[in-house]
């Protein structure tokens, strides 16, 4: 009986430790991606979307609309890679300006960028892994075919 109790405790403890260190590792990786992403953001996106992701008037949409970002999570990689045009609604406002494509961005760079955006400006989207980005890009390439 007593042994049983100890075993359960030990099992729970090790589970907790594994889980905790996993979480810890994940948090470190997210932070790492976000740091790399910030540099890319400054170089490629900040001119239009602003230092705080605030956008510019009715020209460039803000990146602060978590609802938009969450509901378009699977499309974001393709938006960044291929650009975007046509009317979209962000923060309750309709935008209809062309966003240029970024053909030179590698999938891992898009992962960095979206991890930065997705965890800044009030967003809490967690990490965008390389696998997630590759799958998203493959899906929109299939659509375009």
């Amino acid at each position: 009986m007593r042994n049983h109790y100890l075993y359960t405790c030990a099992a729970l403890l090790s589970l907790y430790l594994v889980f905790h260190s996993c979480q810890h590792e994940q948090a470190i990786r997210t932070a790492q991606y976000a740091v790399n992403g910030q540099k890319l953001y400054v170089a490629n996106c900040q001119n239009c979307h602003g230092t705080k992701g605030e956008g510019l008037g009715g020209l460039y949409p803000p990146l602060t609309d978590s609802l938009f970002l969450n509901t378009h999570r699977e499309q974001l990689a393709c938006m960044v890679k291929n650009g975007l045009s046509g009317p979209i609604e962000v923060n309750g406002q309709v935008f209809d300006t062309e966003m240029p494509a970024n053909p030179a961005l590698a999938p891992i760079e898009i992962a960095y960028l979206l991890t930065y955006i997705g965890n800044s400006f009030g967003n809490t989207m967690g990490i965008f892994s390389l696998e997630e980005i590759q799958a998203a890009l493959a899906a929109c390439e299939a659509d375009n075919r």
Partner: protein
Amino acid sequence: MRIAPLVGACLLGLMAGCKQKSHNSLPILGHREPVTKVIDGNTVTDTLYHSIPDFQLLNQDSVLIDNHTFDNGVYIANFFFTHCPSICPIMQRNLLKVYEKYKGDERVRFLSHSIDFRHDSPAVLKTYAEKLGVTNDQWQFVTGSKADIYNLSDSYMVYTKEDSSAPGGYDHSGHFLLVDQDKHIRGAYDGTDDTQIQLLFDDLEILLKEYE
């Protein structure tokens, strides 16, 4: 090549600045020439300062405007194009801050020249201005022939060039030029640099004091 005229302008500005002890007046930038005249038998030497030549350009309401549109006030000029993917959004975001501060104050006007004479028709400029948040005619967005715009950019000491290798197809410098009532350039500011924008805010107040 691109910075030579500006460096020249800055040097001249510095030289002019040295002569004036007070920091409360702005230099006149650009080329200057002594002119000698004989008045009442006396030989007088005067200085001819660089100034913006007369122009006629089509604005966002398809109305021809000219240099007199900016009489009785000072104005800030720049060069951009609407689908510019690089520096223009930063410039226009910064110029919007100045516009918002002086909105309704007719002593200060704004003039953005499009260097994309192919794409930026008055209708395109109108939509752009509205989206940017410009709601009155204090800020004019203009288009003209390639020759008109590119010659004018030279007088404003701004580098502009059609260049297929540049982002968006045009290479240009992102400067703001502060122009006084006599069409003299009194300051040049990098429109993408926050500290330079602060300087513009300060200089604008100094210039406006000249007319009080």
